[in-house]
């Protein structure tokens, strides 16, 4: 049995809480964190997060802003360390290996754990095709058939039909939603096992958001997706599992993690219930 353990040492709550999302569906986990903490300088922003991400599923990270969801996400592909004052503790396992072990190559890890950012950020100096191929180019990976790879990635990102006739146009000529799907295609081109999405729809209109959500749903059949979102309806629509983070004037921590339907219908923690029903945050 896979157990998920969260603990709180605050005065309000002293008993560790247990949530076991995978207890109902027996599944292997693609990624797992154990006792993750994060700091910016002296500021403790994330406390003791232990969470598993089951394979080929979508896990939504929800919670009010400033509760450390994005920091947690960036710890999963070692983007956290680019902030000069950042520090961390704990372990992140990918295929049974700690990605923070001494000598682990961060760049190679990032090829296996792709990322899509809040704001669409296609490279402005590259065409659509070059943008898709940017990953292999940057990592100097040989690609046998570039055309097929471009078509495959764009198709999976749900953009192929719209851009197949203008692959040589610049990425910046696309609309915001199309740019974000181009960024998804770009992340897919290095064939990652896990895809991290940091509020991918927050800068987009409802129509584009819907398209991206469809894309996420299709992708989750073949890869593990972790998505940070502010939007609870979105979390309910796209995710299989949900993890609720809260900061409560201290470092952010995990309150509860479970199947999405449990979180939204019958959460075990009152704070989760309050949040998903819109009483705060």
């Amino acid at each position, binding site marked *: 049995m896979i157990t998920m353990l969260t603990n709180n040492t605050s005065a309000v709550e002293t008993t560790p809480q247990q949530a076991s999302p995978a207890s109902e569906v027996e599944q292997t986990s693609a990624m797992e964190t154990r006792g993750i903490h994060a700091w910016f300088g002296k500021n403790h922003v994330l406390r003791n997060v232990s969470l598993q991400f089951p394979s080929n599923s979508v896990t939504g990270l929800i919670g009010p802003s400033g509760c450390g969801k994005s920091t947690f996400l960036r710890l999963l*592909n070692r*983007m956290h360390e*680019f902030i*000069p004052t950042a520090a961390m503790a704990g372990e992140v396992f990918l295929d049974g290996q700690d990605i923070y072990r001494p000598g682990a190559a961060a*760049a*190679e890890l*990032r*090829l296996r754990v*792709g*990322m899509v*950012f809040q*704001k669409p*950020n296609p*490279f*402005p*100096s590259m065409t659509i095709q070059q943008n898709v191929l*940017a*990953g292999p180019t*940057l*990592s100097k990976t040989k690609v046998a058939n570039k055309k097929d790879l471009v078509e495959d990635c764009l198709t999976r990102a749900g953009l192929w039909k719209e851009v197949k006739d203008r692959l040589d146009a610049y990425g910046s000529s696309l609309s915001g939603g199309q740019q974000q799907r181009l*960024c998804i295609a*770009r*992340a897919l081109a*290095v064939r990652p096992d896990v895809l991290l999405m940091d509020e991918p729809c927050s800068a987009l209109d409802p129509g584009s958001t819907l398209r991206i959500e469809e894309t996420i749903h299709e992708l989750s059949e073949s890869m593990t997706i972790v998505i940070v979102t502010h939007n609870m309806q979105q979390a309910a629509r796209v995710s299989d599992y949900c993890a609720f983070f809260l900061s409560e004037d201290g470092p952010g921590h995990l309150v509860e993690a479970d199947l999405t339907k449990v979180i939204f219908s019958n959460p075990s923690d009152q704070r989760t219930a309050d949040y998903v029903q819109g009483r705060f945050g």
Partner: protein
Amino acid sequence: MPTQLVSDASPDTFPDNPVGRVIATEYGPSDKVFRGVITGGAMMSLVILALIAGFLLFRGLEIFRDFGFGFITSVRWDAGDGIDKATASFGIGAMLVGSVVTAVIALLIATPFAMGTALFLEFYCPSWLRIFLTSVLDLVAAIPSVIYGVWGYAIFMQYGTSWGRAINEHLGWFPLFHVPSPNFGRSPFIAGMVLALMIVPITTSVARAVYSQAPRDQIDAVYALGGSRWSGIRHIVLPFGRSGLIGGAMLGLGRALGETVAVYLVLNLVFRINFQILASVGGNVASLIANRFGEAGEYELKALMAAGLVLFLVTLLVNFAATAIVGRTRGTES
């Protein structure tokens, strides 16, 4: 409680496509004076630039009339006997070429180093060191040219001379590195090196300012795709900062073109067009003015004013272009 929420006038009296009202701020009398005085004062830079051009043109007009275009192209500078104007002949062709040669040498040496230094400061050095080094950079930018000149004359000359000799020994077959006689001191090469040192701080600080505005989210995207620090620089920072670097280099070029004392101290002034950069023959317009000013008669003084006008216009042009190019990058920041 109001009985009617929609005012009577609303549905019909106002057309669907109203004419926009102009909102004009009326300034009080004190503000009118204030704005007038400030606006007047701000025009000083314009007035000064116009006066410089006007006065130098006024003083040098006779020279342009007497020598015409030959003043630019001729290489002969001869004050004659100082009494009869017909014995004098003035041309700054050699000095203009010399200015360009030394400035281009300086630019070619300084730009790669400035680029490396800017990248180092922005992306490689720890932040506590960066704050310190930025102040140092500002300080060395304020080292007066006369000190660069003294250093170049008394310290650097021996190194420059031996480097020049070594280059000539190994690469003398290349026309630029050929010398007619084995005299390697006070050459355009040495002057160019000293000028390069002077313009590195300028180019570096402009390049650094532009590099620091490179879009962080795109650099993040490069890292997220498994790129290294250099990939981020190569694919995002350098393309983004290209025009900033060009602009910074041109600002440096402008400074190198107009430098007087440092060049005067380390370059042998000879009125001959010379592209053999290791030979002890060169010149530049500014050092010509400093060189001839002390003993110039009235007519030669006018020629120096004319030379000054040409130098002014050339550097102004370079600076206009540089400012415009740097401004273009600044403008694209969101």
